[in-house]
């Protein structure tokens, strides 16, 4: 165990680290500047439990109906050994629909490490030396076990997805149950699916690289299978995730340099849910967060950070803070605007703007009152 790993284990407390999945890795790209989040996620802290312990439980329920619907749709698309899925994917990729394809479910069995080995072996088995061979048989792999290095730890990913090998290239196939209506999907859901798929592309590429196969065989174009319009009919779309790949890669690299981040973290910092709430809250306060309203949708600790960020203009949203001349503190904004406080030279411009805003607001409100 390296010294960093030891540090992280101490921070986490006497519990096993939380397992990352594509969703949590994707969420890491949301607020890359937040040190608190990087350290907690790097240490694999149970954030939902931590949030509850400090009195700000997360609100990330998922409706049973949504879960059922997702499972039903996935089962429907994968039915019959993936015949329909193969047709959808091949047609979307513009390659002839293969007469047959092998279907390998890599989901069953032993421990994660063993499964990962099996996935790696079967995925690269019988791969022709050159990707130009169009005659090689198409193959679909369900539930491949993939792995990624996250903050120096090997993280196993168990995606529900299918890796399709068609015309010599691998494509990540992601089945999602949100509808695409007249060619348009919910932008937020689509964006989340793109980042998640990027995580899988990255993991699949690493797998190939580890087997000395060209990682570029994994296409950056992901096939997204969604219900069409208001029906249950699946329809495939291509999603280019090159940009998301860069973002995820960058954030993972940053987490690899957790050592650097840890040097600024106080030695007695703990996020052990077993510690008493006050100690935890006090400890968390020592590591700076970078709260923004967007955190509410993606981070379990957001309500705690929001409470802490009261009185900060950034808590109203980054555009608000920028419109207020970048002044972070609410009291300072009001003091500068009211002229009760002399501005530092570098705040002079912002202060003039705030004074003008205060005067104009008062002017317009009294004129009509």
């Amino acid at each position, binding site marked *: 165990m390296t010294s960093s790993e030891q540090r992280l284990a101490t921070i986490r407390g006497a519990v096993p680290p939380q397992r990352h999945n594509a969703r949590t890795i994707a969420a890491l790209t949301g607020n890359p500047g937040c040190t608190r989040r990087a350290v907690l996620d790097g240490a694999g802290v149970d954030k939902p439990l931590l949030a509850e312990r400090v009195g700000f439980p997360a609100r990330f329920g998922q409706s049973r109906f949504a879960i059922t619907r997702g499972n039903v749709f996935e089962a429907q698309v994968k039915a019959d050994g993936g015949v329909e899925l193969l047709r959808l994917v091949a047609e979307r990729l513009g390659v002839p629909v293969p007469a047959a394809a092998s279907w390998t479910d890599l989901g069953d069995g032993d421990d994660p490490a063993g499964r990962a080995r099996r996935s790696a072996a079967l995925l690269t088995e019988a791969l022709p030396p050159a990707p130009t061979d169009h005659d090689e048989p198409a193959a679909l792999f369900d539930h491949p076990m993939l792995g990624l290095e996250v903050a120096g730890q090997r993280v196993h990913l168990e995606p529900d997805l299918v890796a399709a090998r068609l015309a010599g290239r691998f494509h990540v196939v992601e089945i999602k149950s949100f509808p695409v209506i007249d060619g348009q999907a919910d932008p937020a859901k689509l964006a989340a699916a793109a980042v998640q798929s990027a995580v899988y592309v990255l993991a699949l590429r690493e797998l190939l690289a580890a087997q000395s196969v060209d990682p570029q065989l994994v296409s950056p174009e992901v096939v997204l299978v969604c219900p069409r319009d*208001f029906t249950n009919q699946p329809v495939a779309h291509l999603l280019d995730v090159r940009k998301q790949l860069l973002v995820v890669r960058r954030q993972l690299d940053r987490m690899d340099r957790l050592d650097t981040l840890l040097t600024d973290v106080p030695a007695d910092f703990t996020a052990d849910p077993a510690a008493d709430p006050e100690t935890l809250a006090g400890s968390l306060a020592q590591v700076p967060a970078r709260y923004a309203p967007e955190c509410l949708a993606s981070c379990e600790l957001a309500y705690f950070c929001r409470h802490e960020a009261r009185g900060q203009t950034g808590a109203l949203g980054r555009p*608000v803070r920028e419109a207020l001349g970048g002044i972070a503190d609410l009291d300072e904004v009001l003091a500068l*605007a009211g002229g009760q406080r002399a501005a530092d030279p570098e705040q002079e411009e912002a202060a003039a703007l705030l004074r003008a805003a205060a005067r104009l*607001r008062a002017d317009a409100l009294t004129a*009509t009152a």
Partner: protein
Amino acid sequence: MSTLRAFAAAQALAAGAAQPVATVRHLHLSRRPLVLIPLSMAGEANAPLAAMVGSAPGDGRLLIVPQPRNRDQRFAFATELAATLLPYVDAHRTGTEAVSVDRGRDVRYRYLDAPQLLVPNPAGVTFLRLLGRSTRFRRIDGEYPVPPQVPLLGRWLTFFAERAEHPGSSALVAMTQALTLHWATGQSAVEDLHLPALLSWIAPPAGLSGAEAAARAEDPSVCPPAGPATDPEFDNQLLAPAIEAYAAADDETARVEAYAQLEGLLRDQLTPTWELMWRGLGLLRALEPGARVSGRWDGDRDAFTAYADHLADGGAPQPRRDGAVAAAARLHRLERAAETYAVQRAYDDPLVMAEHRLTGEAFVGEVVLADPTRVDDSGRRPVLRPRIQLVTTEPVLVPVGASMSSPTRPGQKARVVFVTPAADGKVEVVLELSGGMGRGLTATPGSVPEVGQRLCYTTLSEAYVPGGAFPAVEETPWTHGGPPAAGPAADSATDGAAGGALRVAAELKPEPEPDEEWA
């Protein structure tokens, strides 16, 4: 986010109560709006679960779908909603007025009033848009017939959803947007989408500050979400067992009982939002409407009249997607509307104009010199061109030669002649006036500002700008795909093209396919 609005948010946070960002109301409110709160089933493609609808606070009708995945029940819901919405819409097709067009050479008629729908939030607008999309192409004959009201409802809902995209329209209003247009809260825009929290900031219950009340309103067990998405806890703990009980009921008594149970649950989820909607409406009604609000409502009445005529003539439902020319024309229309709306709000409301004063596009100054009799005789024929000089303390970031006007004198143009910095950070501005002073070489009394008056001048102009010209559909330029082919062949040709964006299989069949797969 303008600095002025951000500053109002900062003040709201410091005060613990919402702060006004408008001094007049910028939307039209119908005497009898139809409030509609839809709920949808989680995970499904816009499957209605329930709705509360009505045009008076004591008259909320509850519609529920006991099995939201059942296709027949979804259309039964649409039929029931149509039974409220269509008569409401039709009730506005009574009196008409004549409007002269083409400079009085012709006349057209428009209805004296138009329907107005109020939903809690933008997601409610999206729900109605998709409900319109899923019903407007339904056939009333053939293999899967639906009652004739269903496609008609779909067309009207689509009409409303399209109006909601039109800046300044009041035909379909999301309450959260209407409220944030007039008040700034001490929370972020994301949090403002939650109607209970937003209203807590604006009008907290007695004994609580806005901030405290908003924190309370965030708990879904205290304040159910304003839809269309339901609280997952509610789904898992209460709704799912009730739906299962209804499905399992094997005799009439059990079914009636299970239905009543389900109805009670959904009523409890919807009633708090129903009350909030009318409270929000009351707050908005207390504001005086801006001077140009009724003019914009005329536009809504025009659109309503035109669409009612279109339907009466047996017109086709709105297409799934606009063609290239129609899309360009729509975009142009929306951009023009957005521009007009921004100018009109500033003209109507000094607090909105203050945003433009802060950015140097407008200033308020005192008239210190006036030459109301000045005549410019350098041209072919002498013209009356009075000049005035104003002194202001505000920044004037307007170039010489620019054309300005004053909200109180919209018919008069003022050309900037000099902008001269004076002592104590003041600025002197000399303006040359034209128009709005009567005919002849003597200005009618009062038409030229007098010394001592305080006036606002801005570069924002209400002047009419003619719309752009667009080619006919059959002359669509090749840059935009060329003229559409008559058959579906064009669709499949573009479909195979490479590209990274989300691509979708073309829908080749002109008529919709039945949703028989809803399990």
